[in-house]
């Protein structure tokens, strides 16, 4: 391969990468996040994502949720219009120390992902009984 060819190949591959990035910009799933005495629960709308195409990773500091849309589409289909223009979801959250990320539980039902992260047992609020006398 001479220099000219090498440059051309380089240009076309960088152009391909750029297009890929533009097309594959991930969707940010809308989320509800709430906290009760036991821990934090998240619910995220991720339509089109099955259990097999979902990844929930929690370490000490971060929770990363990723999913891929898989919908059976007939061959040769052209989009007449599309409000969902990506097949990937991604969202991440920072966790705090009182949460026990190792005990994170996740399940998906009809395209809604629920993630529960319990608080460390020793850090859960305790109700203090007040006795009279």
């Amino acid at each position, binding site marked *: 391969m001479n220099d000219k060819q090498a440059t051309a190949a380089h240009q076309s591959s960088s152009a391909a990468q750029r297009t890929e990035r533009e097309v594959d910009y991930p969707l940010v799933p*809308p989320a509800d996040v709430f906290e009760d005495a036991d821990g934090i629960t998240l619910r995220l709308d991720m339509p089109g994502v099955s259990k097999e195409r979902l990844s929930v990773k929690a370490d000490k500091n971060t929770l990363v949720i990723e999913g891929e849309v898989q919908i059976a589409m007939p061959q040769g289909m052209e989009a*007449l219009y599309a409000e969902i223009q990506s097949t990937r979801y991604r969202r991440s959250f920072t966790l705090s120390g009182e949460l026990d990320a190792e005990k994170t539980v996740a399940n998906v039902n009809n395209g809604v992902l629920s993630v529960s992260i319990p608080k460390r047992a020793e850090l859960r609020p305790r109700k203090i009984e007040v006795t009279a006398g």
Partner: protein
Amino acid sequence: MFGDMTTFENLFDELRRMEQGIDQIFGRSTRPAGIRSVSRGTFPPTNVGVTENEVHVYLFAPGLDAKSFNISMQQNLLLVSGARELPINQKATYFRQERFEGEFRRVVTLPEDIDPERVEAKYRDGVLQISLRRQETAKPRQIQIN
């Protein structure tokens, strides 16, 4: 203490407003939009795809019961309505409530040549897929050149 975070959230609100403003002036994309399509953020987001023989409508409506959708056809207009209720956990403190709640209604303009008698709908992983057939006569004919 939370001053910075509040500003950050406001910044996104501001960006969203700007984005909506831009949508109003220029339309949301250079891609063709349906005449009854609505602005960004409307629930459920909808895609429409066509093949030579079929039209497929995908509504990204998670967390619903398949039986709760009302689907009807009026000429070449497809109407889908329903409601999504998100029960509130009274004992919890909410930090984010971004998910759509309430009644929704979408109208999709379909190509003129669909057969209103042959409609199928299925709901899987939170996506409602409505499949319609195009009429035979509408298929492109190959024209021979002599």
